[in-house]
């Protein structure tokens, strides 16, 4: 039952990037305003779900040739590595540090190791959600 989904497909092409950007924003803003890795990840996956709804599983897989299990694994690794990195500096496990750097284009920005940890969370959430949805959606 393939119908002509022109409107939704066109809209999706536009909206996908808006949601994607919003998700990135919410992720980076998480340390100061509501948001963070978890919600950011969920929003990112909802953007991909939108793709899935507008197109079909096969097309989306061609568009985003990503193995989400690997994404989950990488996310988990980043999180653990961030937490474990502190032990090389002779401080307790999970000690975060932050400082301000002058980064080209962005100017004075704080870089916080918690952000790396949150990146891991983000990736895990994206990976898990997409794995579940693709798995159940792909199941006949």
């Amino acid at each position, binding site marked *: 039952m393939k119908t002509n989904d022109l409107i939704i497909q066109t809209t999706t092409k536009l909206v996908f990037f808006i949601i994607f950007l919003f998700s990135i924003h*919410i992720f980076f803003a*998480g*340390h*100061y*305003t*509501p*948001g*963070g*890795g*978890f*919600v950011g990840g*969920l*929003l990112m996956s*909802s953007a991909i779900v939108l793709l899935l709804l507008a197109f079909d599983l096969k097309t989306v897989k061609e568009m985003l040739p990503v193995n*989400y*299990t690997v994404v*989950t*694994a990488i*996310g*988990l690794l980043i*999180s*653990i590595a961030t*937490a474990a990195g502190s032990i090389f500096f002779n401080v307790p496990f*999970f000690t*975060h540090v*932050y400082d301000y750097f002058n980064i080209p284009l962005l100017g004075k920005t*704080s870089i*916080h190791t*918690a952000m790396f*940890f*949150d990146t*891991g*969370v983000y990736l*895990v*959430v994206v*990976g*898990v*959600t997409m*794995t*579940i949805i693709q*798995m*159940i*959606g792909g*199941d006949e």
Partner: protein
Amino acid sequence: MSLVFAIFLPIIAALLIPLLFKRVSSIHTGWFVLIIPLLLVIFYGTYISTVMDGSTYVDELPWIPSLGISFISYIDGLSLLFSLLITGIGTLVVLYSIFYLDKNKEKLGNFYVYLLMFMSAMLGVVQSDHLISLYFFWELTSISSFLLIGYWYTKDRSRFGALKSMMITVFGGLMMLGGFLILGIIGDTFSIRELIGEATAIAGHDLFVWALVLVLIGAFTKSAQFPFYIWLPDAMEAPTPVSAYLHSATMVKAGLYLVARFTPIFALSEVWVWLVTGIGILTLFWGSFFAVKQTDLKAILAFSTVSQLGLIMSLLGIGSIAYHVTGDLVTTFTFATFAAIFHLMNHATFKGSLFMIAGIIDHETGTRDIRKLGGLMSLMPVSFTIALIGSLSMAGVPPFNGFLSKEMFLDAVLNLQHFDLYAMDSWWILFPIVAWIASVFTFVYSLYFVFYTFRGKYKPEQLPKAAHEAPIGMLVSPGILATLVVIIFFIPNFFGNAFIKPAVAAIQPLAYKVPSDVGFSIKAWHGFDSPALYMTLGVFLVGYLLYMTIPKWRAMYNALPSKVSLNGMYDGIMRLGDSGAHRFSSIYMTGSIRNYFVYMFAAIIVLLGGTMWIKDAFAIRLDALAPIRFFEILISILLIIGTITILFTKSRLTAVIALGAVGYTVALFYIIFKAPDLALTQLVIETVSVALFLGAFYHLPKLNKHEKGKEDRGFRLGNFLIALGVGVMVTLIAISSHSQKLIPSISQYYKDTVYSEAGGGNIVNVILVDYRGFDTLFEISVLTIASLGIIGMITLRLAKKRGARKIENK
């Protein structure tokens, strides 16, 4: 050789046995085994002369020093006598087994490993001074006895007998452990010698009687006393050397040893005196009475063992009266202890030889059924002679050692008249009467055993094998024992001085400091004024009459014991335990998850409610509450409507939508309670889960059937009450805990440090990734596991079928 090492020598040697059995197949393994008990009997023999003079020996090997547990080997008169019995009869039994068990047909490796294990265990029991190591060896005897009874494990009866003896003796052993622990706690030491030292202080303790009864249950089960004797006749399925060794001479005497060893501690209690004496006399009578009923040679001997153990037990009980009397009476009653130990030694000699003869008859004729046997006297003259000596000694006929101990027994029972405890008045007379009747039956079954086997008509057509005399090697061991039976009769005082007196001094340390203080001598002739003499004559006369008329009165057993059967009771208990446990668990383990939820929720109500009730923790305080705003009321109403819809809707789709509504309402709550992070997450998660629900429900089979509304979920009062109970309970607990906040919240710290310490502005997120990032780390691990689980379930093609069926069952 240290004493502790001597205990462990057999079990260490046992490690080599399988090797020898496998590699050296030309020589019977028993010959190698024979060295061990022989070595030990010589080793313990060297102690005889010094122990006679009152020396004792101690050797200690720490086991768990931090708990004060060690293997302490303590040698005094009592443990030396038992050690010599164990190793001496052990030697003879091993010798006998060499000829009894065929080296090509039997698994000798197993047999001798078990036997040596048992020997170590038994030596450990009689020499241990520490209660815990005593218990350790005690259970080792149970286990090795279990293995030996079940030696022919392909036979049903063997397995049944092994299991039965295991159940009963381990039951007793555990009771005994309880008694030991109580004793160790109230005495503050686990050393038997130290406990004896503070016996008077211990006797005053409230738990003393419990320790006494529990230890006695252990002793009674092991020594096959009434009503625990039932395992012994079934243990006769063991190979005959085992029956001769374990179930006549050694293991069944472990209980007697225990009673004797603990006499100085427990005899201060009158409960002890009457329990030991009473149960002993009852067992004596019961065993002798039912021995005549048996038709299996070994069963006769088993009941006879039960009966004789009862005799020794009752003598030990009478002997412990010495702790309750003063003056000359002390000697009167310690005489019973003397008689007990003397009979214990005699019994080991004649019963060992009789078992071996029963084994020979079985071996040479192929049957132990006394109805098929007869007329073997001329075919097996040597066996007959030995059997006659053993039987007559068991019956208490001179010139054999059983006569001496039987006379002493009757004397001791008559001595009860001098003792007035619990205002006995003339009730004491019951004891000699019962003892006399038991002696008559003892006489009857002894004659029955020997003459029904060896006299009468030879019935070759009923025998599986043609009867002939046993090989000489098989006759050596019973021959030696039978010789001892006669020797002891003629020089009883030699044995008395060497073995019995040191043992009596150990049991009665208050009365006798050194063995030479024990002033008894054994006389075969007491003179005409001795009442025991006339009682013995009466036993012979009435016993002989009864023996002659056995066929006439034996029919009464067929009417009687089927009703009074302890075996029936045991079987009933086992069956009841088995089927009862099965029935019980099938009542509550229904397999329905509904019922398990009922249990869990009911437990929540009862446990939480009960705790709150007992602690009087219900409290309602309204002063700390915030004012209620309009939006809160509005959203609450939405929430309640959603919830009620879920409960009462008949359509699944409605329920899912209503659940979504509830979820979004909760998100609204988060918003008005100022939790933007939660609200965001809740919104997205709710959306995802509703989508998943819909996806799952779409795939449910026979969706239409339910949609038609034919099947209602129905109303169940029980479910309603439990749901209501849980709801009310949780509400009450929430209100109560809110009403009594005892400590201030930690959140002020987060507010103060979120920027300065953690460099962030969003407290929630900073808590998640920084303050308590550990939780988050494992939560994302949980998510990962969940996704991997779903991959597994779907790709393994199990989830669909099973999941669908289960949901449909609802």
